């Protein structure tokens, strides 16, 4: 009988309108490294947030059994006190503070009214050495590289007396040498008895470190593979990750004639706005035609959003170079206003953060990007505005009592429709839809797909950015695969398969 440290039983977690986790089971043996794999949005991070108490007991159903006892965590401190420590994908360190201060943040040594700095630095140094860092504990976080910051996170976790370490995409921002060092460190800690759960997209790394691999897809556990028992090759894992049927989840687009090229991007380069020597988009060239739906596939952080936003009036990035041609003419779009004028629309992936004004009614949100369309010399015709909002509400069958309803009170799918309405009202020729169906349920997704088809039928060009491979495959006429800022593959609809796309991404990552 193996020694089970953690068992998560029948975990179900719902968000408004979506079931993020549906009856998920996870069994982790003591002293092993357990990998969680799955596509973006499959539910891996949500599962780990349930485990660490970020989603407190009561907001999900199912049991967490840790060391043989049922646990009901209501906050992160509860899980940490039992030795469950999570390290998030985005580093949670304060750049202006020293390594030692960061390591004991919220967990300060000494008395609340008198921090014992000697003890703090002594212990910090001890844990730093344990993870193989030779830096002084007085060094500021901002002065060390990302790789070392990740190691500091691990040292911080050790300082919390971690028994079960959860790492969410620990190597996503690291180069190969740093990644290797980190993985070897995990293997070393495993020998010393530490249990780890690692979430990763990099399957070569998963094959390298993991003893067991659990595949999650669409909020369900699909299978758990054991090293030495099952085949854990990358191909086998990919099959588990993507192996679902694409049934009639996507409405057919019939008789849409694909016309001339409407927009062409040539040799597009974009650098990070803050770390200006980091190239985010690397020599990208692509085109889209009238009536065509083009998919851009790739993992999170591949540079898809950055590409779209930099084209859309330089809303992202610095030192942007390259050419954009619209209807054969070269255009320069330095402001969002220019982009809108040239018939471009960008529907953001973050509808709450950068898409809608949640405290305002549907009417106001619908016209925001084209107020001139309902006003005369700067004076809004409120009756006309109302009529426009009602018109789009009907066209997109947005479910709401009136268009005076606050957008914040709508479900995700209806919010997405309002966001689409807002951009359709700017009468664009080319629409870039960034994750158009993120976080909305299946029925609403279908309606969004119908709207996309309708737009294509009207002769508009649509670019869909999506992490969901079936969506890309089901909706696109042509697919570009983006990885690490570069186009690493282009497929026609009939040639594309999930395996090919995943293969293109993974092959270029491993290089």
């Amino acid at each position, binding site marked *: 009988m193996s020694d089970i440290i953690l068992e998560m039983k029948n975990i179900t977690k719902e968000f408004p309108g979506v079931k993020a986790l549906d009856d998920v089971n996870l069994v982790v043996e003591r002293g092993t490294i357990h990998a969680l794999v799955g596509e973006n949005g499959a539910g891996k991070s949500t599962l780990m947030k349930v485990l660490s108490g970020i989603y407190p007991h009561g907001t999900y159903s199912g049991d967490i059994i840790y060391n043989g006892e049922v646990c009901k965590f209501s906050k992160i401190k509860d899980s940490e006190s039992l030795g469950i420590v999570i390290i998030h994908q985005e580093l949670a360190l304060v750049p202006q503070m020293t390594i030692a201060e960061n390591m004991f943040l919220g967990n300060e040594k000494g008395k609340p009214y008198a921090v014992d700095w000697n003890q703090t630095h002594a212990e910090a140094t001890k844990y730093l050495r344990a993870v193989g860092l030779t830096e002084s504990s007085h060094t500021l976080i901002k002065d060390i590289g990302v790789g070392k910051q990740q190691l500091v996170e691990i040292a911080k976790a050790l300082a919390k007396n971690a028994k079960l370490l959860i790492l969410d995409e620990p190597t996503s921002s690291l180069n190969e040498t740093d990644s290797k060092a980190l993985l070897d460190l995990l293997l070393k800690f495993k020998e010393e008895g530490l249990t780890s759960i690692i979430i990763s997209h990099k399957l070569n790394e998963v094959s390298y470190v993991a003893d067991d691999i659990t595949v999650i897809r669409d909020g369900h556990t699909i299978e758990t593979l054991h090293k030495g028992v099952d085949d854990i090759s990358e191909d086998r894992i990919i099959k588990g990750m993507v192996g679902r049927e694409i049934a009639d989840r996507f409405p057919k687009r019939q008789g849409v004639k694909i016309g001339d090229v409407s927009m062409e991007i040539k040799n597009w380069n974009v650098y990070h706005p803050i770390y200006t020597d980091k190239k985010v988009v690397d020599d990208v060239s692509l085109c889209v035609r009238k009536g065509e739906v083009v998919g851009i596939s790739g993992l999170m952080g591949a540079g898809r959003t950055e590409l779209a936003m930099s084209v859309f009036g330089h*809303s992202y990035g610095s030192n942007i170079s390259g050419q954009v041609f619209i209807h054969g003419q070269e255009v320069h779009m330095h402001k*969002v*206003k220019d982009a809108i004028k040239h018939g471009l629309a960008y529907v953001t992936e973050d509808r709450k953060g950068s898409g809608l004004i949640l405290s*305002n009614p549907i009417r106001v949100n619908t016209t*925001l990007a084209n107020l001139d369309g309902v006003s005369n010399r700067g004076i809004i015709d409120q*009756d006309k505005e*109302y*009529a426009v909002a009602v018109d789009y509400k009907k066209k997109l069958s947005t479910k709401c009592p009136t268009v005076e309803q606050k957008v*914040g009170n709508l479900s995700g799918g209806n919010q997405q429709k309002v966001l689409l309405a807002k951009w359709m009202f700017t009468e664009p020729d080319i629409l870039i839809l960034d994750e158009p169906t993120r976080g909305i349920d299946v029925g609403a997704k279908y309606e969004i797909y119908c709207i996309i088809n309708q737009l294509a039928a009207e002769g508009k060009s649509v670019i869909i950015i999506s992490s969901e491979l079936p969506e890309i495959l089901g909706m696109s006429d042509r697919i570009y695969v983006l990885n690490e800022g570069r186009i690493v593959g282009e497929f026609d609809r009939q040639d594309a398969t999930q395996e090919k796309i995943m293969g293109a991404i993974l092959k270029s990552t491993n290089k």
Partner: protein
Amino acid sequence: MKKDVTLDVSKEAQASPLSRKSVLDFVQKYTMVLVLVLVAAFFTWQTKGKILLPQNINNLFAQNAYVFVLATGMLLCILTGGNIDLSVGSVVCFVGAIGAVMMSKGMNMWIAVIAMLAIGLAIGSWQAFWIAYVKVPPFITTLAGMLVFRGLSNVVLQGKTLAVKDAAFVRLFGGGADCYVPDIFHGEGINILCLVVAAVAAVIFVAVTFIGRANRLKKGYEVASLLSTVIKSVIIVALIAFFSYKLAKHKGLPTALIWVALIIAIYSYITSKTTIGRHFYAVGGNELATKLSGINTNKIYFIAYANMGLLAAFAGMLTIARLTSAQPTYGQNYEMDAIGSCFIGGASAYGGIGTVPGVIIGAILMGVINIGMSIMGVDANYQKVVKGLVLLAAVIFDVVSKRKQS
């Protein structure tokens, strides 16, 4: 949780107009108006009706004219994201000082007026530049302005009081003994012009309301029920009648009130009917989304603070006219009166929410509390305590109701 909210609303839409839900909605929408009515009733009782004497009604508007003007400008700053302008009190003083010096040198009052407004706009633009384009936090920028212009006021006035002797200027901007619009009808014991203006205003209000409603009906848009429109109109007309009668019994329309009404009308229109007004709300509601909608958000910040300077200059003119002098201490705590009125009047401390009429209600509420307590003879120090607590209560209300929504 969100689902529930959506459901509730759809139920509400089907509910009858007088259901409990709609009463609750009414209370929520007009909270501050109801509070104002209650507070006014309280003081009427406590002062045995003295607060309703024509003299006191007149003072309510004349004394607080500067608050109405400043609060209107402050609203635009607050709309952009809960940002405030701390410099307005000092700017009021500084601009007033310059105007007083110019007029004391015998300069034409109109030149002085234009100079004052221009200086106010220039000061506003100076601060607005740092806030909008260099992204210096508004709090810091205007705190600096508060110190700078208070200091400069002292320099300009050399630390002394300077009388404003231009009688035309004083009368026009609401100071001195006869700062009232002359009664061209020469009424005996009652100012007929005041009543006529009020009657015209009431007729225009009713006409605009009902013609607008009829037009919307004709075009097939949704309208509020006839009953609620009638009730609303009756209340507004009754209020106009009441106040105009009181003012007419006193000395007529204070000129300051005319200016205030003009400012309120202009800014109500801008904030509710124009694209630029909409942009203010959008920036405060979600700056990123606004930027991605092709709106120049920096420009909106700039306009808010530049405009605040202009209105501070105008308030400066009202202040030196009313007090017929300029002093280096004028305008102290004016920024707090303006900010307080905005938050009490329902502006959100997070930005994006608030209306000019709401802010005016807030300012009137503050004014009623001031006058009421003064008549009751409450110690000035306790008056501050009460005003502070009222402000805190208003913001707590905003924060808590926001939290319930999310």
